[in-house]
């Protein structure tokens, strides 16, 4: 167990084509920082938007090429054991997640870029550092300052998210976790309106996120103590070697690492931040987080559960089963009492995280593919839903209270109709992606989960029935009620936002009617390399 430092610095062995997507996104983020420094203010927004979208599209193309370069990469030879250790695993699940994240990222950025005729993005404050309501803030708004650094920040976050399901060791996973989280903490605090709420959200997210990172890191240390290595392959081997007998370290370590990851998906009891942050953060950021953070974190959970700790599943799966049950029940029940659209969607996202966990617990390839399908289906729907929330306004600010949505079906049938359709998708009504996704995870759980899986699915079905009430209530408000007052208006979105909402909605419909090609892709991408 005496790990000797490598005698000399070794150059890592890198398959550049395999990691090109990551390089593109991180590179573009760095270029974005330079743009902030050197480009005149009035041109930054357009340039940043162009760079972000172009780099993500380019990254998607690179991902298509990377599929030919699957395998472990970024490796070096361990001096003591002369084994090859690899930091990155470019395999089906990783590339699938990267592709999904990049595409959802494009839609997220398009909605963030919405200006509604102003100079900068409408959702973000002119100067993030100023105290809410202070003269400085007013002055910065008058001076026409804009916060175009949200674009590089978002790119950094996307890069971290792409890295998250790709890394092959615990340290790498921790780095990815931080890279994706830090920009999100900042982005959450940049709302133009209701800034106090936004700053509170940011601080809360940061503090609780720091806690969860600490948990993750402590778990990593314990697991390293157990296995003598942070690489998933070694971890898995060490667990199957029963002669070690350090179960205390293993159980505690696995538990703490899972806490760190479950925090990111908003699983109960690590969910407390979700409603506050979802409500306080600028709505486009909330949509982006709900779709992409969740997808990336589930990718990481899959890798940890199926590659790193697969042989120890009996040690931790009961804990995760409890978490899944709690997540479904708490998310479903608490969403019933919500009166704010963003909080409602936050609790709904908690319930959905519970459904995905049911798929994670299926422990076979179908479980992996169902989770991959679910996060994509859910991601596109939720981005479109939060995109719609940004459009409904009263007195300039977003009208997020449910009562403000009353009668919207009468005054704005297209907006309300789209929202109603997305609600049906969240409820899992057939002919929407939500139904197919739910079916996929439930089928995987019943198929291989045995009696436990069946019980989980029954609980999931009951919770779905509860959430139906929530979504149906929104439809009742929009279509079956008279408007409370007529000062609620719907802004006309720009081409970018319209595109993002339309694509999100179309994908929600298409995955409900002809899901087989994506299911097929998820099936083929469900094999991890070790």
């Amino acid at each position, binding site marked *: 167990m005496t790990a000797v430092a490598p005698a000399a610095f070794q150059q890592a062995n890198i398959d550049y084509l395999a990691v090109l997507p990551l390089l593109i996104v991180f590179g573009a983020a760095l270029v974005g920082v330079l743009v902030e420094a050197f480009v005149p203010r009035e041109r930054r927004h357009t340039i940043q938007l162009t760079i972000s979208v172009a780099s993500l599209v380019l990254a998607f193309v690179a991902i298509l090429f990377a599929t030919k370069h699957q395998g472990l990469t970024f490796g070096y030879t361990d001096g003591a054991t002369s084994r090859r250790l690899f930091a990155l695993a470019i395999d089906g699940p990783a590339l699938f997640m990267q592709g999904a994240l990049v595409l959802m990222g494009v839609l997220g950025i398009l909605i963030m870029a919405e200006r509604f005729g102003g100079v900068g993005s409408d959702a973000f404050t002119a100067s993030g550092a100023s105290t809410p309501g202070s003269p400085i803030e007013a002055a910065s708004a008058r001076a026409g300052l804009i916060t175009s650094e949200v674009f590089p920040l978002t790119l950094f976050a996307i890069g971290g998210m792409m890295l998250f399901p790709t890394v092959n060791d615990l340290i790498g996973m921790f780095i990815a976790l931080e890279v994706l989280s830090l920009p999100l903490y900042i982005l959450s605090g940049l709302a133009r309106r209701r800034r106090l709420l936004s700053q509170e959200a940011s601080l809360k997210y940061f503090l609780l996120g720091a806690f969860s990172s600490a948990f993750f890191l402590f778990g990593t240390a314990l697991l390293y103590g157990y296995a003598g290595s942070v690489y998933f392959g070694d971890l898995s081997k060490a667990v199957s070697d029963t002669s070690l007998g350090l179960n205390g370290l293993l159980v505690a370590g696995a538990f703490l690492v899972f806490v760190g990851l479950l925090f990111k998906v908003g699983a109960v009891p690590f969910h407390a931040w979700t409603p506050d942050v979802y409500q306080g953060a600028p709505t486009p950021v909330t949509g982006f987080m709900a779709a992409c953070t969740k997808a990336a974190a589930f990718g990481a959970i899959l890798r940890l559960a199926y590659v790193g700790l697969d042989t120890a599943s009996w040690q931790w799966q009961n804990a995760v089963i409890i978490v899944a049950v709690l997540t479904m029940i708490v998310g479903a029940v608490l969403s019933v009492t919500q009166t704010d659209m963003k909080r409602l969607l936050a609790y709904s996202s908690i319930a959905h995280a519970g459904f995905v966990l049911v798929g994670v617990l299926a422990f076979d390839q179908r479980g992996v593919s169902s989770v991959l399908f679910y996060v994509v289906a859910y991601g596109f729907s939720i981005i479109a839903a939060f995109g719609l929330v940004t459009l409904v306004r009263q007195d300039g600010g977003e009208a997020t209270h449910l009562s403000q949505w009353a009668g919207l079906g*009468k005054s704005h*049938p297209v907006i309300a109709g789209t929202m109603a359709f997305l609600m*049906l998708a969240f*409820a899992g*009504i*057939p*002919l929407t992606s939500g*139904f*197919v996704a739910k*079916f*996929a995870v*439930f*089928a995987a759980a*019943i*198929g291989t989960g045995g009696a436990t899986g*069946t019980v989980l*699915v*029954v609980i999931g*079905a*009951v919770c*779905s*029935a509860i959430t*139906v*009430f929530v979504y*149906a*209530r929104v*439809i*009742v408000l929009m*279509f*079956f*009620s008279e408007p409370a007052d007529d000062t609620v208006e719907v802004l006309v979105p720009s081409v970018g936002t319209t595109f993002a909402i339309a694509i999100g909605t179309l994908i929600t419909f298409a995955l409900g009617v002809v*899901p*087989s090609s994506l*299911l*097929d892709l998820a*099936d083929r991408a469900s094999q991890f390399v070790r």
Partner: protein
Amino acid sequence: MSEMSSVPWLTLLMVIPLVGSAVVAFLPGSAEQAKRIALGFSLVTLVLGVVAATQYKSGGTAQFQLAEQHAWIPQFGVSYALGVDGIALVLILMSLVLTPVCLLAAWHDVPEDIDGARRTKAYFALLLVLETFMVGVFAATDVFLFYVFFEAMLIPVYFLIGRFGGARRQYAAMKFLLFSLAGGLIMLVAVIALYLQGPGGADGFLIAKLTGLSLDPTTERLLWVGFFIAFAIKAPMVPVHTWLPDAATESTPATATLLVGVLDKVGTFGMIRFCLQLFPNASEWATPLVVVLAVISVLYGALLAIGQTDMMRLIAYTSISHFGFIVLGIFAVTNVAGAGASLYMLNHGFSTAALFLIAAMFIRRRGSKRIPDFGGWQRVTPGIAGAFLIAGLSTLALPGLSSFVSEFLVLVGTFGAHPVAAVLSCTAIILAALYILLWYKRVMTGPKPEGLTGVRDWSLREKWVAAPLIAFFIVIGLYPKPALDVINPAVDKTLSYVHTNAATVAEGSTK
């Protein structure tokens, strides 16, 4: 097991109303024009349905005819598979006839307010979408596809009740949706588990592949329960019937007709197609409970119907009673009772439609659904009163009208298997006479009401609403053979799965 059709008749029957609804919803034009287009599309569908029915060969060996099959989601084992047996065929034809009738009856349901044509268009478009789903749910021969239609058809109904209904429409729509979806989600678990019990594969959800499985008794019973709860809520049976009176009284008459007359048939249809055919042993195991619930439904529905003052609720309770009869006939598992139950589904669809739509003619004129607000109306609107009497007499199963045939068959077929249940249910015939004739007496007879000037007897449109329904009562009442000829082979076929299975079990037990 199914006979492929070269022409995709059933798909056409679904596509045409769907296209119609898109045209109605999105084409500019007046409300009047939209209504005519909607009616036109539904009539074209009806004609096509009749043509398709002529292609159906009664007494073929395959269970399903006019069949189509394409891979849909092979990863889940789902096919887009359609086909009809005799029971499904008559139910589809019933839906196709009732849709134009309802469209015609719904002509003035949406007041022409400030919204202009938009609301009217939405209303008629939703009714056409519903027609698509109604055809689909009866024609699906893939369990998953059936489930998709079963759930998806809730959405148009939800909007039809919630947007166009009465004062408490929000409550009624929500109650309807939650009851139905709760049942549906329980069924979803059973659907998934059923597939895993079957042979699996890319078309493992086909009914043909799931029939005659040798299931472990506990598993079979659990699966049966999963399916049955959903169908019992849909049918609806006591004690999960409470959503129906609310939904029926708060929705427009056309919606109520399609809801009670057609959609609820999916419950009883599902019991035949799924509970009996796929889980014969579990059905046998559960028969005592189901028969008891059915008899309770028969009597309870009838008794409550007598006490109602709201006409729409009254009709809803009569339906609960009639659904009890249908379930009784299904679970008697005799060929006579099965044929009776299937014919009953058809007859109940038409007689309920007649009651709802003709009662709605009075309600519109009087502006009230309450029976005490009426009296002496046969002197005001003698034509409608006469039509109402015929509809009522058909509902109470007067010999010579259609319902008599089916009720008689159900009772005769049940008597051999469950004599007590049959005898108890017979009393409902007397109760039926009470609720119909008391209702008629309170509304129609008595002195001519004061202050009703300018109330006219039925218009030409209303005559066209009533005519096909009354013609049906008389034709099937006097000459039920054509319908029975189509239904009987299908019932025999379905029951043969039950009997084969029972026979193999018996054989196995002697060894």
